[in-house]
């Protein structure tokens, strides 16, 4: 068993990055995720593992530092919260276009604009549907606990390098700020430069005499060439869709009704499931863990067995679109959302099910 600690979600992300053998973290302070860099600076990973930690002048600089370092094959991470992630979108698009691996953590807060510093899930569309310009996808992981904040960093790096694609960890201010028991995984050694060079033959690490020079770019001015780039990306996304779906089903076997929720909302729905069953309502919970790839066939298989589905999100109705595309038109699907930093209570989620699905 790994080391047990009580940690904030943000701290778990930072510790997991060190332990995952991350080479560099570049970030800019923003509430509610500043503990990530604070923890790293206090922990001095530059002494523990040689990991570089740098406070950049902006989120724009952070993401472009990430782009530069990722282009040389290094394992790098940044974290921010919604407004900062908006600033990063150009860089993220470049990284997706250049097929670079990296982990980007979004500890979401309520918007739009400066919004609030309280938790929200209103960045689902931005994370899952691209966010920046052009046709691209991030692999999006949605942790619902501090343990998953930790584990998804390691998983994120594995997927990022497996597919040469940026991975976003889409959490929220509550999961970032709350403390839970975490079992930490053991330290994974940082790769040596020689290992980076041999494991990442695509990376710009310095041109030896016996190979062509490597260019990391997303530019191809020839339309036919750029179309080939796009087709290659789409083929990769298809492969990810076929192979990397993660989800969880709770009390779905005998369910007449279904909650679908991710992240913190899924935790609330799990409690609501217990409360509703105590009242005799047979409801289950489907939790997508990967938001891209979205578990469409799996939701369809559960969703088409039930009488109605309530999608619970801390936003105005974003993931519900993907649920509807997955399940089809024969099942009633409604949305229940709270905004602006309000976390719905398990009791109101039960009431919403009764009013919008069972009684409606």
């Amino acid at each position, binding site marked *: 068993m790994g080391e047990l600690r009580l940690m904030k979600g943000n701290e778990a992300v930072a510790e997991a990055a060190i332990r995952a053998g991350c080479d560099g973290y570049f970030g800019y302070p923003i509430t509610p995720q500043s503990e990530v860099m604070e923890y790293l600076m206090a922990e001095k990973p530059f002494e523990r593992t040689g990991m570089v930690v740098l406070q950049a002048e902006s989120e724009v600089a952070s993401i472009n530092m990430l782009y530069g*370092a990722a282009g040389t094959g290094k394992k790098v991470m940044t974290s921010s919260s919604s407004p900062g992630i908006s600033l990063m979108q150009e860089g993220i698009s470049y990284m997706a276009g250049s097929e670079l691996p990296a982990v980007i953590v979004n500890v979401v807060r309520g918007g739009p604009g400066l919004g609030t510093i309280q938790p929200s899930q209103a960045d689902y569309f931005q994370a899952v549907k691209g966010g920046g310009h052009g046709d691209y996808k991030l692999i999006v992981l949605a942790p619902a606990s501090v343990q998953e904040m930790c584990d998804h960093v390691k998983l994120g790096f594995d997927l990022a390098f497996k597919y040469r694609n940026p991975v976003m960890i889409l959490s929220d201010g509550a999961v970032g700020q709350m403390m839970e028991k975490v079992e930490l995984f053991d330290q994974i050694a940082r790769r040596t430069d020689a290992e980076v060079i041999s494991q990442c033959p695509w990376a710009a690490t310095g041109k030896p005499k016996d190979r062509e020079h490597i260019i*990391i770019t997303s530019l191809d001015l020839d339309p036919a060439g750029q179309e080939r780039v796009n087709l290659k990306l789409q083929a990769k996304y298809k492969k990810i869709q076929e192979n990397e779906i993660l989800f969880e089903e709770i009390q779905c076997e005998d369910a007449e009704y279904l909650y679908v929720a991710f992240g913190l909302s899924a935790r609330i729905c799990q409690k609501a499931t217990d409360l509703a069953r105590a009242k005799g309502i047979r409801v289950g919970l489907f939790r997508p863990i990967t938001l891209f790839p979205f578990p469409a066939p799996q939701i369809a298989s559960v969703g088409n067995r039930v009488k109605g589905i309530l999608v619970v999100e801390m936003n105005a109705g974003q993931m519900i679109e993907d649920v509807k595309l997955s399940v089809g038109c024969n099942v009633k699907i409604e949305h229940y959302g709270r905004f602006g930093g309000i976390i719905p209570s398990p009791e109101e989620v039960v009431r919403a099910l009764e009013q919008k699905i069972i009684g409606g």
Partner: protein
Amino acid sequence: MEELFAKPEIRKPENIVYKKTDLMVDRPLSYCPGCGHGTVHRMLMEVLEEMDIQGNTIGVSPVGCSVLAYDFLNIDMLGAAHGRAPALATAIKRLWPYRFVFTYQGDGDLAAIGTAETIHACNRGENITIIFINNGIYGMTGGQMAPTTLPGMRTSTSPYGRDVQTMGHPLKITELIAHLPGVEYVTRQSVHTPVNARRTKKAIRKAFEIQKEKKGVGFIEVVSNCNSGWKMTPVQANKWMEENMFPFYPLGDIKVDGKLVEKKETVS
């Protein structure tokens, strides 16, 4: 053209008196005839060849006319988003401290959209070389006003001349950067004559030597022409540059060994 280059008689070894460095990729440059980029590229690659650091260098190209620099420079390179080259270079150098890292940027890239990244990378004293090509105009997008466009100068977005009252003053970012403690060496050069090109090459060499010594940023501004954007012939453009650009952007060292140079040497 192809045929001309293929003629065997002029390729006989005894006829070769000068050869471009193998560190330039053997393909035609995409720059306009008369443009300074090709010369700066060659000076840069000659320095890498002489220092024997081709395999130990990682370059970052910008967005602008030199966006395709990586097609011509036979080293590993990354193409940055507009203005962000110093951020990329920062991270690359931090994670590969024994590699030589440089950025190659134009005036719009370095002194407008990328001002923050430029100043902060310089202020942190990153051990990188920054090569800054200043031709006072946005060449690639078709001749719009740049942060370094001279007062009264006509561009497609200042068609009646740059009016400093409404369009602001040209930014002498090189002088600004020279005052930052993280910066070891700042110089302003040109490549419009062989003498000047040699001085530029020497400056690039010095900046790369500074990287070896981990002393901070080496910053080289090259005042250059843009005959297409300026709507002149190459010869006219060089003359105009000497008469108008150099008085405003005087050539010479601005900071050497971490100390500001008192009296600037001006060369025309």
